[in-house]
Structures are given as C-alpha cells and as structure tokens.
C-alpha cells in the first residue's frame, strides 16, 4: 500500500487556484523529493499533507486513510521548516521534547527519546542551549531532532538546507540520506535545487505552476525528461534546445533552423516537415571534425574537473561540457557531435517529449564506452 497518496488534489486561495487535479503516490519507506521552481506550489502541497492548509479538492491519503478532515496532530507526521522554527524560549532539550510533552508522555520516556535522537544527530552537548546560542547548522540539526523524537510515519522537509552554506549543505545532504537509510521512514523533501533532487531522491516529483510535470526515479527523469521544462530543470548545465524540422528523406534526421543536419536513429512516425525541438545535454556533446553542429565559442568556464564552453550555434545558445581541459579560446569555431547520450525530441508546440531515447541512439554512439571510461 502506498504510504502517501494524492488523488486529484486541488487548492485555491479564495478565487485563486494554485493547484489542479494533482495525483501521485509515494511508497512506504521512499525518499521522495518534490522539486520545482519557487512559487510552483511545493510548500502549499506539503502543508496540505501536514494539515496546515485546507485541501479544497480531491483527497490525500496517508497509509490508506483519507486525512482531509484529520487535524495535523493526528496525522502522524513531523515537519522540518525552512526557517527551523525552533521555539526561542525553550532549550534544545525542551524544543525536542515539546511534542511528547504535549502528548503527556512520561518524563522518563521523553528523556530517553530525546537522548536517543540527540545521540543520532550529535546534539548531546547542546541540549542545554537556547536556539540563539546555536550556529545555523546546529539549529538545522535540532529542527531534525524535533521531528525524529516522535518517530512519525512520514517526515516532511520544506527546503531544510537552503539556509546553510554550500559546504554544510552538501554534508547535510549525505547525512540526511544516511539517516533515511537508517530509519527507513517515508520522507517527502521539498527543494528548488535540482542537485538535491537528483542526489537524494528515490523518486522525484517534478512540479511547475501547481501541476506535476513528471514523476520518476532521478536517472529516469534525467534520461527521459517528459518535456522541455523538465529537461531544462534537471541537469546542470541545462539541456540545450535547438529548433528544427524533421527532414524528408530516407535517413531520419532533423534540419536545424540554425543550419546543420542532425542525423537521428530510427524515428518511426514523425511526418517530414514537422517542427520539433532537439534536446542535447551539454555533457553529451564533444568536438568532432565531422560533427553536424557548427558552434562559435564565446566564453570558457573551466571548473577543474570539467570545461564548460558557452557557444552559439546558428543564433542559438549552446552549452558544451567537456571532461578534458583542451585548449579552447573565445571566437574559435568548433564542430560538435552528440555522443554517449540520447538526442531528445520534443514537440515544438506542446514541448512534450516525442520519443523514447532507446529509439534515438544514433551513429555517433559507437565510441560511448571509450569516452565514459577514458
């Protein structure tokens, strides 16, 4: 039985509808990441699940039970807020034990559970402090501790790492994953950061404008984005999108509007002349003297491990991420070919994905293993 289920859930604030007919399910023990640009409704969705926001249409179920009319405290969930919301007048130990005190748990039991959570999170020595006496990272931990103490059946996180510095964020990412593996509790984690989504999720729920764009495992979404939007959101640098038309003729290919003909693998049923958008990830492009794309290098961004070339190809911006350092200079023209990854086709109008990548593997693909391993 799925642990959390949304069925045709809608949300309006007065006359303003911010969510429509939203359905998805999260299995027991899964770490699900709700990702999308800010303002797309992630927090609202989480708050509806938590019981902090009324559900205006549809049904939300936790462990098979509809919770629409269940007050927050009876939903067996715990939530970690972006601002942490630690009660400023309570010590760490009181903050963590607050929910148990409200439930009138015996003192000894509270002490034991708070102690256990504190040990898990390395908070033992901070228990007597007030929130104002803690660093940002420590506060974050206390906020998690407060959730942990209750051993809820579902954990909710609303952008819990966004107030931390970059290094701590990466560290906490790993730690959260680790914690989840240890506890195995169903977790729903909201973020606008696709890296967090990719690295942490068992399952990604991709949102935009109050609607779900795609649900899937991280690599599934990376390899088979359902549309332009998902393709552009997941992966960094973002996927290149070039407009073109299906070329008439024996070999399936796309004539790019900016010039050049991109051969495709087997494309069954696209009418010649049909307008499409071709998507190629920056890391799936590399220099090739016979390549179909002619690009001019504009800016070179070496990251050490990678060299990102920001280019222009037939008037369109084109990013290339190379694993080597090479010797590139601005103004240089390069021939590029897709390799080691799919060429994605999207409908030019609806932006929906047109094909599966398996059918898109094309002739430049033969040296995939060489570059992957080299």
């Amino acid at each position, binding site marked *: 039985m799925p642990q959390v289920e949304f069925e045709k859930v809608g949300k309006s604030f007065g006359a303003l509808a911010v969510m429509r007919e939203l359905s998805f399910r999260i299995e027991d023990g899964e770490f699900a990441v709700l990702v999308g640009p800010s303002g797309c409704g992630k927090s609202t969705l989480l708050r509806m699940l*938590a019981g902090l926001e009324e559900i205006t249409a549809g049904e939300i179920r936790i462990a098979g039970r509809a919770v629409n009319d269940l007050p927050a405290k009876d939903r067996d*969930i715990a939530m970690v*807020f972006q*601002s942490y*919301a630690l009660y*400023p007048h309570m010590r760490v130990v009181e903050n963590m034990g607050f929910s148990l005190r*409200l439930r009138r748990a015996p003192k000894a039991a509270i002490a034991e559970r708070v102690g256990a959570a504190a040990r898990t999170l390395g908070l033992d020595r901070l228990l007597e402090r007030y929130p104002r006496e803690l660093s940002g990272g420590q506060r974050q931990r206390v906020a998690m501790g407060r959730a942990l103490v209750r051993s809820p059946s579902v954990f909710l996180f609303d952008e819990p790492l966004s107030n931390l510095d970059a290094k701590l964020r990466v560290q906490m990412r790993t730690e959260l994953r680790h914690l989840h593996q240890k506890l195995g509790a169903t977790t729903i984690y909201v973020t606008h950061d696709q890296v967090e989504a990719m690295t942490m999720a068992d399952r990604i729920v991709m949102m935009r404008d109050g609607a779900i764009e795609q649900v899937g495992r991280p690599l599934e979404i990376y390899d088979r984005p359902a549309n332009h939007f998902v393709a552009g959101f997941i992966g960094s640098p973002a996927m290149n999108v070039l407009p073109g038309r299906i070329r008439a003729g024996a070999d399936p290919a796309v004539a790019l509007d900016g010039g050049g003909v991109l051969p495709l693998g087997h494309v069954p049923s696209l009418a010649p002349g049909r307008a499409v958008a071709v998507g190629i990830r920056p890391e799936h492009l590399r220099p090739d003297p016979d390549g179909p794309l002619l690009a001019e290098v504009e800016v070179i961004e070496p990251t050490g491990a990678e060299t990102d070339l920001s280019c222009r190809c037939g008037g369109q911006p084109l990013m290339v991420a190379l694993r080597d350092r090479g010797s590139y200079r601005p103004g240089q023209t390069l021939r590029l070919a897709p390799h080691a990854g799919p060429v994605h086709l999207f409908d030019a109008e609806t932006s929906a994905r047109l094909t599966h990548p398996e059918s898109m593997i094309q002739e430049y693909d033969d040296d995939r293993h060489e570059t992957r391993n080299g």
Partner: protein
Amino acid sequence: MTGATATQAARLLAAAARRRRLRVDPMGAALTALTLVAALAFFFPLYWALVTTVKPEVEVVRPGLRLWPETFTLEACAFVLTNSRILVWYLNSVVTSVAVTLLVILSSLLAGYALSQIAFPGRRLLYGMILASFIVPISALIVNHFLLVHRLGLLDSWAGIVLPQLIHPVVIIVYKQFFDAIPKEYREAAVVDGAGHFQLLFRIFLPMTTSVTAALAIITLISAWNNFLWPFLAQNSQEMMNVTVGITQVREAYGIRYARETASAVIAGLPMVMLNLVFQRQITRAIVLSGGIKA
C-alpha cells in the same frame, strides 16, 4: 608609509579629534538646556510635595518660598497613618488594581490571540469595534457604568470597582499586533507537534512576548492604582475606598492641613513611584507600544 609620515599623520588625527571634542554644537546645547528646564519644571511639584510632607504645618503656611525645611518632622505622616483608614484604603487599592491588572491581561491575551490567530466570522468587525471603543473616552461612559453597577448592587464593593476598569482596548490591540508579527512557522511547528489553541497561546505565544506582557501589566497596574474618577463615584463607605479616594477624605475630616494632605498623597503615590523606578524600561516600552498603535 615611512615612520615620519606615520607619526605626522597620527599627530594630525589627534588634533582633529581634539577639535571635535572642543567644538560646541549650539543647537545641541540649546536643546539640552531646554530639556533641563522642562525636567526641572516636571520635577519641582514632586519635590515640593516631598518637602512639604516633612515640614511642620506652621512652616507650610508661612508666606514665601523656602526650598528647604527649617525643621524636619514626620508629624504629618504619622498623623495620617494613625488617624485615617489609610491602611484599609491601601488594601482596597492593592486588591482592586491587582485584580484589574490580572483580569485585563488575561482577557486581552485571549482576545488578542483570537483576533490575531483564529479565523472566525465577524472577526474584522469585532476588531473594528474594539478599535473604535479605544476612541471613546471612559469618562463619557461613566454615568452608564454607575447605573449598571448600581443595578447589579455592586457599588461599594471590590467587584464594582474592578468591573468597569476591565475595558482596556489598548491592551487587546497591542497583543493582537504582536501576535500578528510572530512568524507563522512557530505556530505551524507547534500545531504539527500537537498543540491546541490554549497550548499555542500559553506555551508559545505568551512566552515569546513576555516583555510586552510585563510592560502592559505595569501600565495597567499604574493606571488602575491612580484611577480616581470611577472609584470616587463607586465607593461611598470609608471601608471600601481606594487610597486615591480616601486621601480626599483627610481634608474633609480634619480641615485643610496642607502637610497632612500632601503626606497622604505622597503615601498614596509611593508604591507607584517605586514601580516606576524599578520598571522604568518596561514602562517606557509600554508607552511606546500603546502610542504606536495604528488604527
């Protein structure tokens, strides 16, 4: 930079600092003087009352202004303490003003919380009415209060003194505004933790606004203690009088004796003076709070 230029620079800086210290800002000086004069003007009556209290009556009525008594005596104080019911009046004042304070704080806390945090039909209208009642001076209602309390048979009782003084819209308004300003995450975290309204109010909101509560309690207490008009109307028997009303009886009972009168006034005001000294910060804060209300 060479050593020579460094010392030179240091010398120049020191000279500039000296000039700055010596320069007198004429505007600032004028304002300081004005403040001083005003402070003296406010302080003088207080001083005069204190000095009069410790003078013998003959010296008080002697013409001319003597800033310092020739002979010190506690006769006036002793007389008031022994020959009037001032201790009973004190008790009445303490009981009624403490009761007013506790009840005003508690009811305003509840009302402010409800107005700020609970969506119920008519909330805005209710709040509008509270804001409006803030504009009506209490003295305009005092006849109604008198009739009402009379019909309730509560004249000459503690309850009769306390009840009309519970109308304190400012305290509700201040609480509402403070609760409005508490980030909603605290509330939501507590709701998810399992808190109901009373737990939210008494375990989260109230502890987060203790300094506001302290400030509001102190000014409520002071205004209840100093209140004259209502207790004057509602208390007729000496037994039930507040100290502010009682001290007017000193004159009526014994003829005009300035030293005794001021002595009773000083004794009546003493607790509030002490409160003022101890809680100066909270009182200033409370005045700022209730003055800053936007209607």
